[in-house]
């Protein structure tokens, strides 16, 4: 681990991982992230897999970096540094000025469904980051209440990189969209990302292994009201009212 040993105190960790975690925050602020509007994220709380509406999925995408002389630390450093460049075409990730570091907020724009006319504006909190992994957590309004961990490790003679998501669609509309193609699109998104990363470090023909498991088939009906924060509906409204806002000079 990256943190140096610290003196043990009663009921305190032997090694300090405090610098790897985001500081406690009640409401997120994405002000200052260049390139995108922050109003879909600023003022929102984080929302993890426990706060979502739909079924809970665990998705693990791994790729072996065969034939490449690298280390987990080097791959993670590259991944953090060039994160947006590994995303598939059409999706945008706006890195925070300080890069991917604990407590930073990034903004993103994605297609909520294949071919959807609306682009979803939302973001992520960097929940955790060390030399061998980093984790994002979604804000209220994101289509998925989730966290996703990107990591790398040695296995035998090689290095393996992994993206593992724990995710629930946030509200009933998101659950429906997930069932209508959002789930498969999400899988293809991360498979493509993993291939792009492996290619960038020199793997000639990367093979992505995907393990998709529904670990809770129940829907959490007490969270149906998450719809009030829906970034999808907000983005749709923004798209529909765009001509009016342009005409009235408010857009």
């Amino acid at each position, binding site marked *: *681990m990256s943190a140096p040993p610290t003196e043990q105190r009663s*009921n*305190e*960790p*032997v*090694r300090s*991982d*405090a610098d*790897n*975690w*985001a*500081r*406690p*925050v009640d409401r997120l602020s994405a002000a200052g992230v260049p390139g995108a509007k922050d109003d879909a994220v600023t003022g929102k*709380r*984080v*929302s*993890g*897999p*426990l*706060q979502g509406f739909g079924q*809970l999925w*665990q998705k693990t995408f791994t790729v072996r970096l065969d034939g490449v002389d690298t280390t987990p630390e080097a791959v993670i450093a590259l991944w953090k540094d060039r994160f947006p460049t590994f995303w598939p075409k059409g999706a945008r990730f706006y890195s925070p000025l300080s890069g991917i570091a604990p407590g930073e907020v990034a903004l993103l724009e994605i297609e909520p469904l294949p071919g959807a006319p609306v682009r979803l504006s939302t973001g992520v909190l960097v*929940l*955790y980051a*060390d030399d061998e*992994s980093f*984790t994002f*957590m979604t804000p209220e309004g994101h289509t998925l209440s989730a*966290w996703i*961990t990107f*990591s790398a490790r040695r296995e035998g003679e090689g290095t393996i990189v992994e993206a*593992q998501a*724990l995710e629930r669609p946030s509200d009933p509309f998101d659950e429906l969209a997930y069932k209508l193609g959002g789930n498969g699109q999400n899988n293809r998104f991360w498979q493509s990302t993993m291939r792009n990363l492996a290619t960038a470090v020199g793997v000639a023909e990367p093979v992505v292994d995907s393990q998709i498991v529904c*670990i*809770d088939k*129940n829907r959490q009906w007490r969270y149906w009201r998450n719809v009030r924060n829906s970034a999808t509906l907000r983005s749709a409204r923004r798209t529909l009212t765009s001509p009016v806002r342009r005409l009235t000079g408010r857009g």
Partner: protein
Amino acid sequence: MSATVIELDQEGEASILRIEGDITSASEPDLMAAYGLAVANGATAVVLDFTRLEYMNSGGIGLLVTLLVRAQRAGGRLVASGLSEHYRQIFELTRLDEAIEIKDDEAAAVAAASG
């Protein structure tokens, strides 16, 4: 990195899992096996005592979520005790504290789990 050591104990109706060392995604087999034993012993409420926890990364928090889901599916519940201030803050940050009751010490957690 320290190995995860989990001591299983029974106190009335509650099972206690005393966790020592690190909790990361690599701890999954040990934690799930210990939980499985607790359930096999008839426990519906399980206390996770973190007094001797040394280190937990985001993979460890993810593991606690999957354990919680497993417990909820079986109609059980989890209560946490012995969390340092740092890890209490992590539970709050990740909103895990909304689903896992947190008590200061093991005795209070056992009382809550048995109630």
